[in-house]
């Protein structure tokens, strides 16, 4: 897994992610996947002592929605109870890349004669699920050479069968005595993946003991929230203490409340431009242009998809309530819409802005607008009138001005004002 991927899923998939502890507690038993024994941080001293005696040693880990736990120095091997309890406390308080641990847990040390990497994901090359396998478990999959890992497309209706899995193991040169058990275990892994509506699942590594037993020794999964099966899994997924800001949390709930129109935001931590953007593609380009020219956008947003008035008003109202006071420039920008009605969306934004001023008093910031699409003229007039009434300085562009030029202009105005301030 690349660092980029981890960053991306953290916000988008906070509650869509299944960490190892949830896997150990709920999903591995349900799908009969062999896992090491574990204890959570609330275990008593005697339970820990007893477990360590039985296991010989344990690994202490934080349960956190962040990757690089090992590289961050938050995974420890422990052998005695005092050290285990101390490390469990440390792990439970871990903070990695701004994320805070929910709790900590320790898992039994599993001696291994063989470590194996597996992942199941939907693969753009095959337009189907695929199963990736390597006998070099424990490593980042990107670091494993192409000749030492194999990817097999899976028929989404038939699933992964043990013969396919064993064939793949044999191709990679897996010792024969482990093939059968591993292949049957991988089928359970597939069952978990497909039965819970996952988009990606990874066990890295599976450890094969000298006795020939197999254990899933670390797990990560990402659910597909568009899959109805996820609803069943969601009930047992824990809440993590850190993560979204209050604004993101409210926007996420608002976003999930309806399929009519997008209400997607992701905070960027900027301090200059408040961008009300339309279109998944356009919003990405605009944010990149803002960043390039010093616009320091507060968040990335996508409010396209032809939202009705109430939806757009609610979205804008939330953005203004949380973020307008921090901004030095309001940017309302999108490409040439295909079906988003500009009069409806702009009237809603204008009304939200007006109501914000009514509740919070006058604001003094430039507003830069750029848009094209159905009923544009009515929309721009509605916006212009409101900006006139609110006595806000403004510049309004039509679809003949490229949106990236508008974004560049907004970024430069915001930067200049910031410098002046």
């Amino acid at each position: 897994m690349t660092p980029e991927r981890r960053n991306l899923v953290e916000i988008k998939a906070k509650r869509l992610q299944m960490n190892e502890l949830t896997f150990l507690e709920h999903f591995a038993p349900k799908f009969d996947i062999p896992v090491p024994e574990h204890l959570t941080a609330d275990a008593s001293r005697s339970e820990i002592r007893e477990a360590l005696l039985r296991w010989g040693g344990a690994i202490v880990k934080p349960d956190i929605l962040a990757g690089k736990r090992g590289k961050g120095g938050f995974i420890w091997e422990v052998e005695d109870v005092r050290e285990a309890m101390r490390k469990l406390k440390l792990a439970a308080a871990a903070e990695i890349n701004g994320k805070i641990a929910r709790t900590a847990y320790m898992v039994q040390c599993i001696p291994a004669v063989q470590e194996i990497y597996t992942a199941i994901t939907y693969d753009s090359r095959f337009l189907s699920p695929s199963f990736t396998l390597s006998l070099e478990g424990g490593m980042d999959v990107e670091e494993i050479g192409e000749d030492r890992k194999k990817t097999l497309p899976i028929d989404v209706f038939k699933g992964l069968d043990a013969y396919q899995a064993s064939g793949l193991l044999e191709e990679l040169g897996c010792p024969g005595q482990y093939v059968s058990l591993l292949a049957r275990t991988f089928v359970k892994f597939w069952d978990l993946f497909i039965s819970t509506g996952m988009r990606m699942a990874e066990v890295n590594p599976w450890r094969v003991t000298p006795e020939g037993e197999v254990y899933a020794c670390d797990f990560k999964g990402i659910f597909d929230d568009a899959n109805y099966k996820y609803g069943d899994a969601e009930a047992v997924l824990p809440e993590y203490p850190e993560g979204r800001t209050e604004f993101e949390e409210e926007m996420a709930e608002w976003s999930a409340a309806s399929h009519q129109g997008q209400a997607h935001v992701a905070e960027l931590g900027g301090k200059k431009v408040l961008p009300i953007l339309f279109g998944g593609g356009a919003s990405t380009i605009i944010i990149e242009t803002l960043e390039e020219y010093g616009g320091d956008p507060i968040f990335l947003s996508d409010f396209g998809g032809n939202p009705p008035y109430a939806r757009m008003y609610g979205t804008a109202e939330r953005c203004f309530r949380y973020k307008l006071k921090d901004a030095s420039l309001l940017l309302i920008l999108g490409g040439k819409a295909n079906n988003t009605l500009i009069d409806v969306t702009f009237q809603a934004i204008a009304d939200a802005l007006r109501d914000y001023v009514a509740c919070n008093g006058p604001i003094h910031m430039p507003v830069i607008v750029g848009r094209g699409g159905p009923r544009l003229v009515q929309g721009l007039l509605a916006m212009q009138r409101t900006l006139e009434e609110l006595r806000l300085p403004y510049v309004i562009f039509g679809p003949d001005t490229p949106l990236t030029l508008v974004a560049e202009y907004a970024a430069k105005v915001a930067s200049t004002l910031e410098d002046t301030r």
Partner: protein
Amino acid sequence: MRARTLADLLKKGDRVAVSNITGREASHVSIVSQAYCNNIVGGWALGHGGEMVRCSKGDDIPVFADCAGLMRQLPPERRPNKVIVYSPPPAVYGDVKETLNYGSDCVETIYIITEHVSVEVSAKIHNLARDAGIDVVGCNTLGVINTHDHVRVGAVGGEDPDETFVPGSATIISNSGNMVNTIASYLTTAGIGTSFGISTGKDTLILTPLAELLRLAQLDDNTRIVVLYVEPGGLYERQALALARAGEFTKPMVVYVAGRVAEKKSVSLGHAGAVVEGGGTSASAKAAEFDAYFGVEPFSMEMRYRGTEELPEGLRRGIRVRSLHDIPAAVQLVYRALHMDRDFAPRGEMKLNPWFANIGELGKKLPAVLVPAPGKIPEPFKTQFDRILQASLGFMPARRTMRNQSHASSNDGRVTRIYGRDVMDLMRNRSFAEALILYWTGEEPARPFEPRLVEMSLMAALTNGPGTLSAQAAKMSASAGNSPHTAMIATLATVGTDHGGNGREAVKYLADLFRPTPMNDPYDPNHGLDLRAMAMQTATAFKQAKDASKDAGVNYARIPCLGHPVFHDQDVNYDPRERAIWAYLESEGIYNIFLHFYHELAGALREVGVSRKVWAVNVDAAIASVWLGIAWPKLRQGRMTFERAADLAFLGFALGRAAGGAGEFLDHRDYGLPLDMRVPVEECKSLTPPVGGNHTRP
């Protein structure tokens, strides 16, 4: 894939069926599509069988209860070969299966517009459709447009595809639906039109991958260049470049790769599939792969491209752009390098063109380069703006608590101001009427004659003799022994819609008539309107409404401010006070379109037989015309609310008449007897007979 060229995805003569066609978006887009290309043969929606989607242009669209019904009931020559799915996410899989079950003998392509379809369902759809030999575009595609054939499926091109999609040589393939439109619009500035515009969708699985589309574009004779908009996620571009490297795609490409922001910050991009998963799927990795294939540096406006020998060879493969707005220039570069002609003369420019700007004081803080120069609104938008502005009057103010605030006046403990002007200065240098116009409109008089007209209006309103209701009220108050201000209150209390308040109705009436016209300056006699024709038309409509109402025995809306109880027995009647205002206007060479119109209307009403004599244009009409003349430019330019404009005429009358009431009070108080306005009992008649017994007190 089943398709062999892009035209196999969509061409003239294709017959499209729409799932969930009665949905908000599906019905709207379908109606626009019918107007553009009339290629929809039917749709289905559960519970809506037998309905019809009415189209203003093109065929109405029959709605069937389900897919099976549509396939069975449409005649063979109307059976669809394209299906577009607009169903909500949980219904998409079912709709696709229905299509395969009942339409596998005729359907060639399924377009899935729906967003939030699960990856698992997408994979299953791919699997089933592949086995059935049917192509799937999506999920979450916006659709496809074939510009040369003037046909589309989905919403590509929005409400007016012709505005953006001009036949030409570029095929746009985009992960973002919106970018198909935007890029097509940009390309016209380079004189490049579109062959196909294709929105692939950007779910995790793109069921018609880029490599397949390039394979189809290779065989499209109209396509000479492919413009790509690419987002992170998936290895679609790597597959496509492998195809190109293998010589199976040889046309140049201009590419914009979005999504670098996701690599620097922990954000998710808007599209579900725009997620980096493994090597080669990030924006940077994709950009690097394109650059390596092209063998030329990304396009730069600053770079001089002439004289580099290896450049044309690289450009034969294409070039990547760093900014979206560089696409037209990069396409032009490729065309020049390959000696290809553009499709038509460039339309418009890639530059900042503000349509509206009002940066006020902010302009002083910005360097000159950031102060927007006034732009030009291009057609057809300019005409649309003019039309809407003509049809609308005034603005809607932002509501807020006004308890301790006022725009109209201020007092800082030293100076009292009216809309920012020092009252002392006004007292020294201006007339009462000038100050009144400022206080009531928020602006100083725009024309030098306006204060005099207001003054005349106030005088005209002072009185119409002691018998008027308002004068009687003042006299009543005096007769009761009240103090002077109560007489003014009593005067105002008798001013209403039927007495004195008709000016407000006149303003509304005139505004409705002149709102849709291009008239902006009411004092300009060269307004270009045929007032006589307007008056005749209005009078004829009024007559028809009046006759119809009388036939039906119901009331009808009167024309305000025409006719007078006193001045009515001449062939052509006049209200002398209105005449005084008219005479002033004439003597000063001032024109007022509203008053002029009133006279035309009075004549027209007789002409069409509504009246036997020419009714007097009364003083309320004159007052309304004066105040509407002052307000009209402010209404047109959105600086005054319409409610205020209507109130001005009423207030103008009320202010004059309240002063008149004071005059009646003073006279009556000086000379009258207490209770002399009382009506003696014997003059009062009871209209109700006594009921039962003796009502006389013992």
